[in-house]
């Protein structure tokens, strides 16, 4: 049997994992039975927490949690200035432009790929628990409009998490695949994907199981988050005006406000009125009613920003809105009625008596599509054998030419894999190096595009200027990631290429991070053990304290009293430290010292209700009934601890 491959939607707000069960893609729930894993990572005293577990930390202690880290993937300091105004990202102070970002979290530093890796690791764990076996390969979705650096960062996250990402699939394309699976209909479809942090529009042509993407457009920094931020800004102004208090710097209130704003936003999709309800640090309450009309007026500018990419995608596909047969809605933000109204207008749906597709849960549809693609890559099944995705690159690839202008070599909306071959030569006699600057984007000047890589063609045999002929091959693979190779043709010599990514982690850095995550795992385990042992120590000390009131206590000898007192005092001291073994030994010592006391208690209770019960069952009532056979049995305490 082919190796199992899962499908993952690594979202800005929430992440999910799924797989193909027979002929149907399904979502794998987490341990708590919930499908959505919030993309939140927290550093807690018990180690690293991900998902719902981390959400509690986000509210109680915002400095120890991070969310929406996807917004930082593949970006540098200069890219993220706008984000910093709205998101409580705590960046390391010593960052330089061009460097991979580092976030401060619970006294450590994490790069965005490491944060994403922790989310991936949690999803992997959920799947492994579900299957009862290892999961090592995955298809992971990315926004269609993600550039090379953002894609590479996502792949790095997979490696750090110990998960081989066999394919990056564009989110709207995945959604189309999920819808297309049971429809098997030919035609032109548009996928409007408005998620937590990104917006994508893709236009596809479906033909006998082939999903050919014709054009795509979008904004990698436009999503439900922006609606929330706008809402929060207004609320803060409101609070400043009404209650005369400036809360912009207060992380905890901001988190509470964000939570309230999101709840109101969701409520307003089905109700006409909602209330913001936040308790301020001084105990006063901020209560504000918002009507749907007010909300829609407020967020109209954000929603309107999705229209231009839609029109551009149509133009690039050389189609009119009326030619689009079906529109698929993806992403939580498409639940907002005003968003649906905009889609209806842009694609003239109502005018043609049509409705957008919303049958599949907009939060899950991308994951379901990723699971379908995973099945295709694993060798296919009856359900997927006819299916093939032909995806495209969202941005033009170019080289900086003389004067800083961009020479485009692979235009945007080219089907991938795609390649281009360019020839370079020298400008000076005897020149042995040629520098090449690769950029991605639609602007005329290289400085206005996204810099992907600068590299040197080295070791060119010295020749007269203009004579060397260096062939450089640029290849965008099926993941949308660029590869470069070069050859000097006159001498037939392979030129050594040093491709230095302008942004992103080097291979060595990724390797170190893989190791680092193991170290963290060990450290986390050690921390957890200490905490558990400490809890156990507290419980046993409390039980001894309680036992002194039992008639059996009086039957102990002075020596036994001393032994118990010493062991108890010793445990009291070591449990304050972090030496797991010392705490463990001290617990065992106190346990041994109180053994006879436990036996005495058991004798005195020989006729009591516990007679005939197993040790385990008796242990379960420990601490409540002093009649337990051996109240201090460590195994029982551990059971208690894990509840």
């Amino acid at each position, binding site marked *: 049997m082919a190796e199992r491959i899962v499908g993952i939607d690594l979202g800005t707000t929430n992440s999910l994992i799924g797989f193909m069960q027979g002929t149907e893609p399904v979502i794998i729930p987490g341990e708590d039975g919930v499908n959505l894993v919030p993309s939140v990572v927290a550093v807690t005293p018990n180690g690293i927490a991900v998902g719902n577990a981390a959400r509690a930390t986000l509210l109680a202690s915002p400095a120890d949690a991070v969310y929406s880290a996807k917004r930082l993937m593949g970006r540098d300091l200069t890219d993220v200035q706008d984000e910093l105004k709205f998101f409580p990202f705590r960046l390391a102070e010593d960052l330089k432009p061009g460097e991979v970002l580092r976030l401060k979290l619970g006294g450590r530093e994490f790069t965005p790929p490491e944060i994403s890796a922790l989310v991936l690791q949690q999803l992997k764990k959920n799947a492994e628990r579900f299957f009862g076996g290892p999961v090592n390969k995955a298809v992971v979705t990315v926004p269609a409009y993600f550039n090379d650096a953002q894609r590479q960062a996502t792949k790095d996250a997979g490696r750090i998490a110990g998960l081989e990402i066999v394919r990056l699939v564009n989110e709207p394309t995945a959604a189309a695949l999920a819808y297309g699976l049971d429809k098997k209909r030919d035609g032109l479809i548009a996928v409007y994907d408005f998620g937590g942090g990104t917006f994508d529009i893709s236009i596809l042509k479906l033909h006998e199981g082939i999903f050919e993407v014709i054009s795509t457009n979008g904004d990698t920094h436009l999503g439900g988050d922006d609606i929330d931020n706008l809402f929060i800004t207004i609320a803060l102004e409101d609070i400043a005006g009404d209650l005369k208090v400036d809360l912009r710097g207060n992380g905890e209130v901001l988190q509470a406000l964000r939570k309230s704003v999101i709840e109101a936003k969701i409520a307003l999709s089905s109700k006409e009125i909602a209330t913001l309800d936040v308790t301020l640090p001084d105990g006063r309450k901020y209560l504000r009613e918002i009507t749907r009309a007010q909300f829609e007026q407020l967020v109209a500018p954000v929603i309107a920003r999705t229209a231009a990419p839609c029109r551009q995608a149509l133009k690039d596909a050389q189609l009119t809105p009326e030619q689009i047969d079906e529109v698929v809605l993806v992403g939580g933000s498409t639940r907002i009625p005003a968003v649906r109204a905009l889609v209806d207008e842009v694609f003239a749906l109502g005018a043609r008596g049509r409705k957008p597709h919303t049958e599949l849960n907009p939060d899950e549809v991308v994951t379901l599509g990723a699971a379908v693609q995973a099945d295709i890559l694993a060798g296919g099944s009856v359900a997927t054998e006819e299916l*093939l995705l*032909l995806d495209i690159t969202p941005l033009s690839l170019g080289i900086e030419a*003389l004067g800083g202008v961009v020479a485009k070599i692979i235009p945007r909306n080219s089907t991938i894999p795609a390649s281009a071959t360019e020839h370079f030569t020298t400008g000076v006699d005897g020149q042995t190096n040629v520098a090449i600057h690769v950029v991605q984007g639609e602007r005329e000047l290289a400085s206005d595009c996204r810099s992907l890589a600068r590299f040197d063609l080295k070791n060119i045999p010295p020749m007269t200027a203009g004579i060397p002929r260096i062939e450089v091959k640029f290849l965008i693979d099926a993941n949308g990631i660029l590869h470069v190779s070069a050859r000097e043709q006159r001498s037939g010599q392979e030129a050594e290429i040093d491709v230095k990514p302008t942004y992103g982690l080097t291979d060595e850095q990724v390797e170190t991070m893989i190791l680092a995550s193991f170290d963290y795992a060990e450290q986390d385990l050690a921390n957890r053990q200490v905490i558990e042992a400490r809890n156990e120590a507290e419980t046993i000390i409390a039980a001894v304290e309680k036992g002194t009131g039992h008639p059996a206590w009086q039957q102990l000898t002075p020596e036994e009293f001393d032994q118990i007192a010493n062991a108890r005092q010793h445990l009291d001291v070591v449990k304050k430290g972090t030496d797991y073994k010392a705490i463990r030994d001290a617990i065992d010592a106190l346990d041994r010292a109180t053994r006879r006391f436990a036996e005495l208690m058991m004798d005195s209770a020989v006729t009591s209700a516990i007679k005939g019960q197993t040790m385990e069952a008796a242990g379960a009532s420990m601490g409540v009934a002093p009649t337990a056979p051996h109240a201090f049995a460590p195994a029982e305490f551990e059971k208690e601890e894990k509840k």
Partner: protein
Amino acid sequence: MFLPTMTDSNYFSVFSLPRKLALDTAALEKTYYAQSRKLHPDRFAAKPVAEQEAALAEASRLNDAYRTLKDPIARTEYLLTLEGVQLDEQSKQATDAAKTAGVAKKQIAPPELLEEVFELNMQLEEMRMNRKLGEDDPQLVKELQAAKANFEGMLAVIQTELEALWAKWDAGVDVDDAGAKDSAKKEMVALLNRRSYVRNLVRDVNEVLDA
């Protein structure tokens, strides 16, 4: 099954097509889909790395070929390049000349368009001025829209002319008439230059109107 060899292959041979310009794009698409089913990297995900890499090279070649051949202009330019016309060189020479002269690169206006281009440039300048001053001149906007329609009409005519030249080229290929081929080639180069000039005019008008 077809297998393009990396050494002796051009985009036409990837589709087992002769080097002709009139093309049945529906048939091309059909072949493209069929070949994609065989060559796409998705079909090789579970195969050894060497096979994956070979598939990647072939699939990208297939995509490059399809992207070029399905588009009438890209197809024509590609054929001219194959036939030894250095389209890039022309543009490079213009760039170099502009750099030496220290001026912005300009395309030479086709003589028959000189008058119209002169007038258009005046109108564009006026329109940019208006925008800067925040003034509104509905008459000027109307004139520019008319000019745009005029140039777009020219593009449509150029397309028809180009298709006639395709026929001339293809006929030359059929009977192996070097003279006919050569003259078709020269006419196509001139027509493509004219086309690119008119297209830039449309772009300029759009820029000003959308501003």
